[in-house]
């Protein structure tokens, strides 16, 4: 019986030793996808060449040829990353038929390592949302309870990992879009330091703060993925040189003597008592491992959500301007339209949330409003960065619940935008300040997962992964039963 529940590192080991054939594993994975997709809708498209690619790799392995570090591992990719000659919709009707003409840098790097891209994962349209309910192709469902949201915007990525439709996934995180669904689906979700992974080929939402990152079964798997995709890229001038750091090496170092700041501003009003209890338990576990935990306040956290949405809507308004049905779009005749009205008509293909964000993205930076909204948001971002840098002079790591609430029912919050916004309150800080952050599965309460978030200073990703691994080892959690 093929075990689809193995971790990425276990898969690599088994494939390398010839204990599993890639063809069998991919075949079983496709069967699994076929059996659960009706219930979960994690994927927007499936790679119909996956089995052929698997057979080719098996041949290479058997003949002793060099094989990449992924050994045919099935990976799902959020549908906002370009895979050459593959449909890349961004979960939008606007890009329904867009076939990417090139590979994103992360895709090139994984192709070299012989990964198999099993499918493109569902998401909120243009990554604007945190429940996957705003996908133009219908929401993904939480595998722990299909009446509940899986989080978002990388909801399909988290669902596909937690329900064994792949071994690992890549998502993107603009305000928590990797960590939030990771928390809601009980997977590891990791947003690296800004610039550590190239964004070339990632369809832009808010360039100044978004990052690609892995969603995996274990922290070690995230470190493994980071080793493959991190590093400087001439196609993305915001990338930073990591000197080929090996994030897996010494991941068992532990956290004895490390100082951890408990962010009080992320554990106050509105937090679910079960989430608060789980966070306190996580802190106790870390103390039991020899860490020293103390409270710390980041006063700007209170304003971070407003700053985040102001900045991201402004950048999104600019980024979405390219969707004019000239460079990207769909077939509809030009006759009878004046130039601007043709573009406006084409943009009716944006869903309601994207349209709302475009309106806000036009409003908040406009003359007469910029001083009140956009400039203040940028100042909050600056002050928040100063506060967190100050905190990292005293602490090695910071801790908070990833999301202050438990997963909620599909449709429950969709009509209340501010209530939805506030779900991001614990995750946007890492994006606004560029810091690395990770969500670690920690507890299942009433059948619903809770994740704990750790943050580190910029470029301290290795320390962050070591601490996350230490916390992960303190708990044993059930798997989804779907």
């Amino acid at each position, binding site marked *: 019986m093929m075990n689809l529940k193995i971790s990425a590192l276990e898969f690599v080991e088994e494939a390398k030793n010839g204990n599993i054939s890639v063809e069998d594993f991919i075949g079983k994975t496709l069967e699994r996808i076929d059996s659960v997709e009706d219930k979960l809708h994690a994927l927007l498209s499936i790679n119909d060449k996956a089995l052929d690619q698997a057979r080719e790799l098996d041949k290479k392995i058997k003949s002793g040829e060099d094989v990449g570090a992924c050994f045919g591992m099935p990976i799902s990719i959020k549908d906002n990353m370009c895979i050459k000659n593959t449909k890349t919709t961004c979960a939008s009707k606007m890009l329904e*038929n*867009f*076939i*990417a*003409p*090139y590979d994103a840098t992360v895709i090139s790097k994984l192709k070299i390592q012989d990964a198999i891209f099993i499918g493109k994962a569902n998401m909120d349209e243009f990554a604007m949302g945190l429940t996957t309910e705003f996908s133009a192709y219908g929401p993904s469902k939480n595998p722990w309870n299909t009446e509940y949201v899986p989080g978002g915007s990388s909801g399909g990525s988290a669902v596909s990992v937690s329900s064994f439709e792949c071994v690992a996934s890549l998502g993107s995180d603009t305000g928590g879009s990797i960590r939030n669904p990771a928390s809601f689906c009980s997977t590891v979700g990791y947003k690296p330091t800004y610039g550590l992974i190239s964004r070339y080929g990632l369809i832009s939402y808010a360039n100044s703060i978004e990052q690609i990152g892995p969603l995996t079964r274990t922290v070690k798997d995230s470190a493994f993925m980071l080793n493959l995709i991190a590093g400087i890229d001439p*196609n993305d*001038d*915001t990338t930073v040189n990591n000197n080929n750091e090996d994030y897996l090496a010494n991941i068992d170092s532990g956290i004895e003597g490390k100082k951890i700041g408990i962010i009080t501003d992320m554990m106050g009003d509105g937090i679910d008592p079960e989430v608060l209890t789980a966070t306190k338990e996580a802190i106790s576990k870390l103390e039991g491992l020899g860490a020293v935990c103390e409270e710390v306040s980041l006063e*700007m956290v209170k*304003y971070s*959500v*407003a700053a985040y*949405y*102001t900045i991201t809507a402004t950048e999104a*308004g600019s980024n979405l*301007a390219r969707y*004019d*049905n*000239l*460079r*990207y*779009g*769909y*077939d509809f005749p*030009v006759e009878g339209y004046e130039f*601007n*009205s043709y*573009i*406006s*008509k084409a*943009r*009716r293909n*944006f869903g309601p949330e994207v*349209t*709302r964000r*475009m*309106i*806000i*993205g*036009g*409003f*908040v930076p*406009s003359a007469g409003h910029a001083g*009140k*909204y956009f*400039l*203040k*948001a*940028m*100042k*909050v971002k*600056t*002050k928040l*960065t100063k506060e967190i840098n100050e905190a990292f002079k005293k602490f090695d790591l910071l801790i908070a619940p990833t999301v202050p609430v438990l997963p909620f029912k599909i449709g429950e919050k969709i*009509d*209340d*935008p*501010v209530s939805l*916004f506030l779900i991001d309150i614990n995750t946007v800080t890492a994006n606004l300040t560029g810091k690395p952050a990770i969500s670690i599965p920690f507890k299942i309460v009433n059948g619903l997962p809770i994740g704990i978030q750790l943050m580190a200073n910029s470029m301290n990703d290795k320390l962050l992964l070591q601490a996350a691994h230490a916390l992960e080892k303190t708990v044993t959690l059930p798997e989804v039963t779907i």
Partner: protein
Amino acid sequence: MVTVEEIENVSKLMKIDIDDHSEYLDKVKKMISYFDILDSAGVESEEISMPEISIESLRKDEFIPFEGKLIEKMNHYKGTYVHAPKMS
């Protein structure tokens, strides 16, 4: 306070065709009203810091040939219009 007229104006500037602007009023108003919290952040005197990338850190401004033949996709002409490619 956001009005229907402002939404009409912004949507025109953003080139979005909306049938009923009032449909967006409620949620946009709630979102913008929430942003008013920024008024109490006390950041007026803060200097905005922006990440700086030196010119030396940028890649050279040089032609990099694209392996695909995108120009071949530019084959849709209608009168004086060039129908842009769909990349498919």
